[in-house]
């Protein structure tokens, strides 16, 4: 049984440099495994999904980017505020994107204007499109997608991005935008949604994760799991790790061992290798500390290994399999 059975919207976010897009893509693949249909979305106009899946830049169109193990599909959509607004006008006001009102809105630069002067409104459009994909139904009443994964803006902006009612509330107290933002907010706050945080076992990303969970909780947004990315296994045996960190690694034994293996072991070489072991041990200790700090959040937590080379499609499948094994999907 996966850890998030009722969740249909997975929001993935993390500090810059934590590779949240990679994690979002791996999660989408994991969720699609075994014949599911999943939509992976991005909202920052940087075409991160296309780069990961080795595909040309995504148009504003839901397009299949990958097949999951066991026969599921991952579709992807790069949401653009202007297109989302035209969609919205079409859906709620029956304005054709090519009709005069929509064209004149575009010609006047109204969309630029609306999305520039009031970022909260832009976010309503972006999250509104995501919500639309979550609640969309097929003709037979079944959900169009089994799950939607959103590669969200970085942790620092996440609450502002998702807490649209609050952002819009100051601008529009009544009216259609207010209604729309309330509807989107209802889905975001519901048990259908989980906001996952991606982190590294480094001080700053761990701290931002702790702060992120607190901020999301305060905004009544449902916190999901914590995904620790790029985890490296300790390479020294535990006892040696402790010794190395305390600066009392047995260099005599190390020199003997190197000679045993048929290597020259001059003093400078032994010292330099000892230094590398010390730095490794320090890093492992800091990572352990980060892990302990994250454990205090008491959220489901998943670890993904550091892939030696830049993540390619094969690597994404490996990460997806790992998330499944750990029960995230």
């Amino acid at each position, binding site marked *: 049984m996966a850890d998030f059975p009722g969740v249909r919207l997975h929001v993935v976010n993390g500090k810059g440099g934590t590779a949240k897009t990679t994690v979002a893509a791996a999660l989408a693949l994991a969720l699609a495994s075994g014949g599911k249909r999943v939509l992976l979305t991005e909202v920052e106009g940087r075409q991160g999904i296309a780069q990961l899946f080795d595909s040309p830049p995504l148009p504003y169109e839901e397009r299949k980017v990958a097949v999951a193990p066991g026969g599921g599909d991952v579709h992807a959509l790069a949401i653009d505020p202007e297109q989302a607004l035209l969609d919205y006008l079409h859906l709620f006001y029956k304005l054709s994107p090519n009709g005069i009102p929509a064209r004149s809105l575009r010609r006047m630069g109204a969309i630029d204007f609306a999305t520039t002067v009031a970022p909260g409104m832009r976010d309503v459009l972006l999250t509104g499109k995501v919500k639309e994909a979550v609640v969309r139904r097929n003709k037979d009443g079944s959900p169009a997608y089994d799950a939607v994964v959103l590669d969200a803006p970085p942790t620092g902006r996440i609450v502002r991005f998702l807490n649209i009612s609050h952002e819009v509330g100051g601008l529009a107290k009544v009216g259609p935008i207010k209604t729309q933002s309330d509807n989107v907010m209802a889905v975001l706050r519901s048990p259908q949604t989980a906001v996952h945080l991606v982190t590294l076992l480094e001080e700053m990303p761990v701290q931002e994760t702790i702060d992120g969970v607190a901020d999301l909780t305060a905004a009544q947004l449902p916190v999901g799991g914590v995904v620790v990315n790029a985890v490296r296994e300790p390479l020294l045996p535990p006892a040696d790790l402790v010794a190395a960190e305390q600066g009392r690694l047995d260099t005599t034994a190390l020199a003997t061992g190197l000679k045993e*293996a048929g290597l020259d072991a001059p003093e400078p070489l032994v010292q330099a290798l000892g230094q590398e072991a010390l730095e490794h041990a320090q890093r492992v200790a800091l990572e352990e500390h980060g892990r302990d700090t994250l454990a205090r959040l008491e959220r489901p937590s998943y670890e993904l290994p550091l892939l030696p080379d830049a993540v390619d499609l094969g690597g994404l499948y490996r990460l997806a399999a790992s998330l499944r094994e750990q029960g995230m999907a």
Partner: protein
Amino acid sequence: MKHLDIDATLDSARILVCCGSGGVGKTTTAAALALRAAERGRRTVVLTIDPARRLAQSMGLSELDNTPLRVVGVDDSQGGSLDAMMLDMKRTFDEIVLTHAEPSKAQAILANPFYQALSSSFAGTQEYMAMEKLGQLQASGDYDLVVVDTPPTRSALDFLDAPQRLTTFLDGRMIRLLLAPAKAGGKAYLKVVSAGFNVFTGVLTKIIGAGVLQDVSQFVAALETMFGGFRERAQATYDLLKAPGTAFVVVAAPERDALREAAYFVERLAAERMPLAGLVVNRVHRSAVTSLTPETSLAAAQSLEQSGGSPLAAAVLRLHADRVQLAGREQRLEQRFVSAHPDVPVVEVAALPGDVHDLAGLRAVGADLAGGSQALSA
């Protein structure tokens, strides 16, 4: 590869802008550069956007504050000093409004809900305000060098475009349209737009509601009085960035995405004729043991494991192989950047096990910045 001589830049520049994508150690680099410049005798101020809490504390910053504070513990024997401040975006914006608008209009602007949204979260406000503050600090005459850390915007465009974008926005057709009804003078203009405009306001009212539209119109009308001031300042800032004495330092980590972003930045700066000092590659792994290749290490480790020899030596050899391989991958990525941008000077900073959160740590990073890069160029 050309070597970036950081000290030469620190001794001659009047403005130093650190830019790069998020998570590459940009704030730490900016702080380390500023500290080094101060200890080399320059009166320096560092403007940071969103430092990690402990780094901020190490510089004596506890909250957003638009006034630079003296950093305690800096070696002033060369006659330099270090001040630091964290940008308060909204307050900087408010100050501009108060400076440029008539008092009665200023209050109307500050109270308008659209102004409040714009000043606290407009994508670009942070960048624009950072540039604005930079201009103020430079003009104060209190400093020889202003070091500025830019917001971690994913897109380099955001940062360079900020002044231009705000101007374009204020000059925009939409704004002119919203003001049009109030301007009886432009009859011919009105005639052309009115058909489209009526449809347009009709749609807009329907979508966002009449109250919101009225707020927008009021906001725009109030802002209009200060358009001239805004444009002038945006242009002045842009010119300042291009002026002699300004240097950009692009910061990256030896990873594919960060270097791709750095390449984009470098190209963009060149296109805008902005003066680039060079690239700082942070968090580089190196190994002092060059005689022992990963292949030899792994083979030796394997033979030890098979023969039941020293587990410690085997583990240390594996660890060494891992480190050299990582260093090799990083060098290949960096080399790719260098091949595409052979004229950009580069300096490397070694990866540290933990984060920097005191002056001693910043000093060590500064020393590495000034002396680094030998490993790769040698």
